[in-house]
């Protein structure tokens, strides 16, 4: 593996780690259930995406060929994350979870 690819892959891993960490921090720091819902659906999208790219790049450069399964993992993650976020939000409204004071607009009656 050349030095350039090594640095590029390290950079991708660091970016992925950073956004995953930001997602975790958001989970702790954001004020109510609905805002906390944003952190895992979002930060993981980019975080996991970058880590998967690094994995694809690593196995391509070692000669094993690009792993199609990593790309599939990313695709399935992108397909399922919005659905689960939607169901969690619906469940929260069903349980009458109150949004933080200052939220504009209202959740719907379920």
């Amino acid at each position, binding site marked *: 593996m050349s030095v350039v690819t090594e640095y590029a892959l390290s950079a991708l891993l660091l970016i992925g780690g950073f*956004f995953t960490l*930001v997602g975790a921090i958001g989970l702790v720091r954001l004020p109510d259930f609905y805002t906390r819902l944003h952190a895992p659906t979002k*930060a993981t*999208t980019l975080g996991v995406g970058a880590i998967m790219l690094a994995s694809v790049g690593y196995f391509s450069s070692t000669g094993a060929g690009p792993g*199609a399964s990593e790309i599939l993992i990313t695709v399935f993650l992108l397909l399922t994350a*919005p659905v689960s976020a*939607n169901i969690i*939000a619906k469940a929260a409204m069903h349980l009458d979870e109150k949004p*933080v004071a*200052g939220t504009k607009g209202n959740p719907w009656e379920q």
Partner: protein
Amino acid sequence: MSTRLGFPQPFLSVILFCVWQLLGDGVSGASIIVGLVLAWLLPQLTRGFWPERPATRKLWLMPVYVLRVLVDIVMASISVARLVLNPRQPEPAFINYPVTLENPLAITILASTVSLTPGTVSADISDDYQVLLIHALDTQDPDQVIADIRRRYEAPLLEMFK
């Protein structure tokens, strides 16, 4: 009879077949046979969930749309990261988004896109598919969010689906 035995969702069948080939360790005779069986069986089993064929046109615009969404995910992730690390409290909002799309699949794609692009999560859809409830993480102006979604995502989807 032909609909009982045929491929009710040819597009879905092709995707299932390709995904099955990618999941295994390379293409082999066995994986092709299993892929063909799955490509036939799964659309048959799930046909009840697809009351009508998705009516599409200009589907070649889809890669452009996917690319735009990917770029938006990167750009907006950065702004959410900035918000999370900023000591200022966010200003969340529930937004009622009036949907002009009519195709159920197109509305699903729109709702998923809204959830994937950071800053917004689609929370619910009204029973008549007219209004999408969106939770925005941080916005001063809900009307601006509606205008952005309509321009960036719903307009291209309207072109792709009847």
